[in-house]
């Protein structure tokens, strides 16, 4: 084991968090109309006056940055510069936001109505709002909310409007623009649209990045975007995308502003509107194209209860302090700053670390409801009993007891758990169950997942006595929906769980061996979970500390051993990771055993799905989470990263070249058949 920095006990995990206030309460007691028409006069950066979108566009168009690229493109293509300039203008027209207070007021009104119908409460930490208000006045601000639902950015703007804060300019995917009327509405409430992929289109990149930077440099408005790039269908945080983060850091790195504040915002939904939609999507039903009529159909959701939303504005992070000692800003001294430059390796590493850090901050401040604990337990029970006799479910008292136990564990691990202390635990569990009645069945004091056999599942499940395959998919929808709640709490348990799994697969109790297994698993799972690059040692120490504190492990200088009393904890933790470990093994197995020569990247997901369906139906596999395309893609990404699979660019398609030896050995190591010391990983 390499030299390790002494571990500072991570009580920051247990840091005090702010209290949350329900902003809907006031809406229920006073006029929405008056609220929508209230005087709205937010404080701006350095007391700036807001600037018209036309002015902004011409600032961008006349910027040295954009002009440089226009000339460059003009030289390369032989087109006249003004033609390219027109193109750039068109891009900006397509992209630009057009904030209008009247639209904002309309949304304020409509959303008040909708929120009151949908949610019990929308809770916000007001201290976070105060910090944000302070930050907005001092430096340009970037808002980085987590992304779990379409609602996210409307919700953000709604909250900021409520607190009389400057409305953000929001980077949104172009797909929204397809929604005719709504697209324009969103634009007028501050959204600007970026194409999902613009590859090497220099002009687009220049116009787009300059647009964002101009807003930031001048502090015209807070900029908001989603670090995760897209909505997480699994409710796990996604590996952050770096493009926009690079852009918003540049004004600081190039000295154009003194600092930039990054504000992670954690939005958690007690029940997600898109819950079963996501599950279906993960199972291969393609995502419906966003359309206005689709949105209207979604109206029926208005009749259901979606519980509460918790929005937590995290501590603003100063890019300057992060960059201190990490990025040498004088690297930009030798080329005029308007000429686009590829960021140095040092800078890239810095941006990447920052991105992880911010996503971790989002995770840590994510409010968790008791239901996520219940869901985790139900799911484990489901896997445990499955394969045995007919599912029995769990006795309600037992479930309550386990949930209370898990509450203790998760709090020890620093979870931000919102547990109503004034209620009996059994009532807490019951009310969680009733909110999620689409996913669970309660009868005769027992509880189980609402799989199809048990009766009519949520609306739209067509299968009474359908083909086994269809039945399997219908079950999988429930399991994946349920898993999406478990996933919300995963980050709390992740490091200890990796350690538990490592201990489980390591025959010896030597600390060094356990550490190696831990690193292997961590490395393998690095595309699945948010694990900061290069933080093996810290993560290992953290896990040892937490489990040692719980009395589940005895950690000495050389040994890491499970204690007798730690059995329950360790089991729970191992079981938490099990679906993923199994899933990855299935992917490996497919690649070793069934993948044809010249398998294309496109075919990969459906092929793995078919393979898994076979295994599941044959009863060789119990975790139907392996059907999730998210898991499959993450597994492939991990294998690509480890070099066990290579992408070969053909003329039309990308094919996957599998190194069967490596993949096989990875699979064995995952399954604990091969010790990590001998693993191919060492050789990779």
């Amino acid at each position, binding site marked *: 084991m390499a030299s390790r920095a002494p571990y500072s006990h991570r009580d920051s995990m247990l840091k005090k968090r702010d209290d949350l206030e329900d902003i809907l309460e006031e809406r229920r007691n006073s006029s929405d109309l008056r609220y929508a028409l209230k005087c709205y006069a937010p404080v701006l950066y350095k007391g700036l006056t807001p600037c018209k979108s036309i002015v902004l566009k011409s600032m961008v168009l006349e910027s040295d940055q954009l002009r440089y690229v226009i000339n460059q493109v003009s030289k390369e293509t032989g087109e006249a510069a003004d033609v390219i300039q027109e193109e750039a203008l068109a891009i900006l027209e397509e992209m630009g936001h057009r904030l209008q207070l009247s639209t904002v007021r309309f949304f304020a009104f409509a959303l008040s109505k909708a929120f009151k119908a949908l949610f019990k409460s929308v809770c916000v930490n007001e201290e976070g709002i105060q910090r944000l208000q302070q930050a907005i006045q001092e430096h340009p601000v970037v808002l980085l909310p987590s992304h779990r639902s379409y609602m996210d950015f409307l919700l953000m703007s709604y909250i900021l409007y409520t607190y009389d804060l400057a409305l953000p300019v929001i980077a949104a995917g172009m797909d929204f623009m397809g929604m005719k009327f709504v697209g324009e509405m969103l634009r007028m409430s501050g959204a600007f649209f970026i194409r999902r992929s613009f590859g090497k289109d220099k002009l687009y990149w220049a116009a787009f990045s300059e647009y964002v930077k101009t807003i930031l440099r001048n502090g015209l408005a807070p900029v908001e975007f989603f670090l995760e790039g897209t909505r997480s269908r699994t409710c796990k945080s996604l590996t952050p995308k770096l493009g926009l983060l690079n852009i918003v850091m540049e004004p600081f790195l190039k*000295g154009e502003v*003194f600092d930039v504040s990054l504000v992670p915002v954690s939005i958690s939904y007690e029940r997600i509107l898109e819950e079963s939609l996501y599950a279906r999507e993960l199972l291969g039903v393609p995502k419906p194209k966003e359309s206005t009529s689709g949105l209207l159909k979604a109206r029926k959701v208005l009749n259901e209860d979606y519980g509460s939303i918790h929005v937590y504005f995290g501590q603003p992070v100063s890019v300057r302090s992060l960059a201190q000692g990490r990025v040498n800003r004088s690297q930009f001294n030798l080329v*005029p*700053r308007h000429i686009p430059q590829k960021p140095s390796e040092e800078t890239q590493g810095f941006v990447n670390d920052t991105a992880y850090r911010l996503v971790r901050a989002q995770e840590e401040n994510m409010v968790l409801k008791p239901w996520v604990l219940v869901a985790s337990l139900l799911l484990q029970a489901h896997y445990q009993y499955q394969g045995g006799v007919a599912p029995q479910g769990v006795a309600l008292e037992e479930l309550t007891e386990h949930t209370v136990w898990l509450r203790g564990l998760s709090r020890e691990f620093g979870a931000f758990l919102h547990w109503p202390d004034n209620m009996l635990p059994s009532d807490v569990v019951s009310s969680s169950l009733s909110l999620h009645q689409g996913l669970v069945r309660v009868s005769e004091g027992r509880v189980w997942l609402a799989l199809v056999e048990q009766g009519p599942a949520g609306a739209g499940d067509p299968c009474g006595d359908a083909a086994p395959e269809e039945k399997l998919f219908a079950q999988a929808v429930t399991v994946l929906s349920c898993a999406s709640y478990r996933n919300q709490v995963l980050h709390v348990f992740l490091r200890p769980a990796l350690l538990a799994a490592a201990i489980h697969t390591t025959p010896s109790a030597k600390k060094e061996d356990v550490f190696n297994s831990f690193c292997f698993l961590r490395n393998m799972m690095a595309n699945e979970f948010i694990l900061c690059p290069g933080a093996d040692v810290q993560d290992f120490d953290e896990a040892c500390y937490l489990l040692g504190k719980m009395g589940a492990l005895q950690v000495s200088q050389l040994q890491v051993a499970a204690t007798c009393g730690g059995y329950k904890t360790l089991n729970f933790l191992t079981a938490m990771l099990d679906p993923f470990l199994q899933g990855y093994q299935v992917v490996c197995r497919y690649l070793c055993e069934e993948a044809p020569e010249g398998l294309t990247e496109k075919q990969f997901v459906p092929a793995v799905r078919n393979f898994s369906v076979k295994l599941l139906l044959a009863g060789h596999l119990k975790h139907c989470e392996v059907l999730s395309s998210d898991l499959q893609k993450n597994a492939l990404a991990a294998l690509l990263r480890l070099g066990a699979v290579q992408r070969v660019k053909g003329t039309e398609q990308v094919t996957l070249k599998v190194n069967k030896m490596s993949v096989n050995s990875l699979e064995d190591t995952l399954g604990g058949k091969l010790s990590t010391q001998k693993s191919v990983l060492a050789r990779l």
Partner: protein
Amino acid sequence: MPGHGVLQASHPAVAAAPSPHKHGSSMASGGGSGSGDSSGRRPTAQQRLRVIAGHLRKPADGGGPGVGAVECSAPGDKADAAGTRTVPRRRQEVMKWNGWGYSDSRFLFNKKGQAEFTGKRYRLSGMILPSLKDWFEGTFGASIQHKTPATPLLNPNAVKPPTLNEAFVEDLKSAGIPFSSDAGDRVFRAHGHCLHEIFALREGKVGRVPDLVVWPNSHNDVVKIVELACKHDVCLIPYGGGTSVSSALECPPEETRSIISLDTSQMNRILWIDEKNLTAHVEAGIVGQDLERLLNENGYCTGHEPDSMEFSSLGGWVATRASGMKKNIYGNIEDLVVHVKMVTPRGVMEKSCQVPRMSAGPDIHHFILGSEGTLGVVTEVTIKIRPLPEYQKYGSVVFPNFEMGVACLREVAKQRCAPASIRLMDNEQFQFGHALKPQVSSIFTSFLDGLKKFYITKFKGFDPHCLCVATLLFEGDREKVLQHEKQVYDIAAKFGGLAAGEDNGQRGYMLTFVIAYLRDLGMDYYVIGESFETSVPWDRVLDICRNVKERIIRECKEKGVQFPPLSTCRVTQSYDTGACVYFYFAFNYRGLSDPVHVYEQVEHAAREEILANGGSLSHHHGVGKLRKEWMRETISDVGVGILKSVKEYVDPKNIFGNRNLL
């Protein structure tokens, strides 16, 4: 036109002394920019020059009547000139031993709590500055009730007895070169004007000081001294004007040999003037004011006016790559120097001809310029001279904000029509300038001031907390100056600039020289501060100003400074491709246990910020020991290697052991 008015009398005043700190080198140094001046309201150039000449004339302490220019221009008369010197051997008789400038000139708050400036040398001397107290207390949160007086006299017991190399001293004696090991003489030459140096002196603390001071009288004396130093292995530290602000004069504590301070002040003659080629050959110890005065008497000038020109020396300018405020017309020191003689341990280095330019390998002058006393002593310099300009005029322009001001300076530079000097002060300095307005005698003037203020802020809508001021100095033929003035004001108008009168311009330049004296006032009341400079490309001027000022404020807060610091800047020079920016920073240190350390940390952070924003390590103060740590990243490994190998060849025994630069 002889003295009209006041100032001329015997010594008047002007001159520049600029920022507290300006310059630096082991030898004197050159500084930044401009000087103030005096003279009546509408001085003609002649008048002004007289005035300057007047001021600079040294009071009669030692002696003889003024030096005749004639003598100077007549080669060979050296001996006669020796009688009249601005800088005596015992400097402490005329200048403060623990502060800036002349002993008789200082700011103080009188019994009524009003600020006044003592002495008779300067335009401001004897005047009351009614608004300074409020500005001072308001800006720093200081109070004139809370004093931190300096130790009045040097305690000779605090100075370690000298470590003398007896054999060297014997040889020196037989060579007939004057020297001294008096504590006062030695302490005076152990420091420049960095904050930490002056702060320590005020507290009566003295570190390592030279063991001996020698006063060579000529080039040949220097050759002799350097030979002896090599022979006896002692360390030589050249000393010019002592205005260094880079710790260049500090004796390296690790030096175990005897340290000899080589004071060039007595080598102060103009050896000849060549009117056909417009050059003058001058001994390097001459200080700026004497050089200008003597040349003026012959109808010439060099036009080199660093802010420190009252005290800094020609040799120091060369050794630190000094810059003068009128460089737009006359050039910086590297443009002015035609020929240099430098005595090194290897012998004398000089070119064989005095030509405007030559292509004969790398220019050896550039090993000398900026060498900061690490390679040898500059003894004689041939410098360009110009006929005195016919006419001189100040001016000023008010801009609605700093951004507009910078844009205007940039445009002026682009059109290459910069006046002799053009400087832009930010809003804080503008307000500072106002605090230095002397008491107005007539109701009419104060009425006029009120009217001006009303016009600018109310009628033109300038925000008094944003507006900033550019000060201008034009020089040349009367007609051309007027034409030039119009051109510059026209450009300024395009950037929203309004002409704001000669008076404001003149006060701006005055501020430059009094600010150095003001630091001593601040230190009497818990306020410490300093200025530092950099050069930066045009496109980064605004960014660097904003970021560095902000960084200073933030660092002060983090280091526990109780009251927000004064953090301000100005653009003092403009070039085709960039500008020189000066930062001023001062704070109230009540409640801090180690204020100097806090100060140094903040300055360090500010320099880091400058470098991160594309600024240089220094525009003209030099590196000394204060900024050594950044040399490698500034000039690259190979660059450092080249300088090292030059040092290695020229001075293998490290006789010139001040350890500056590398």
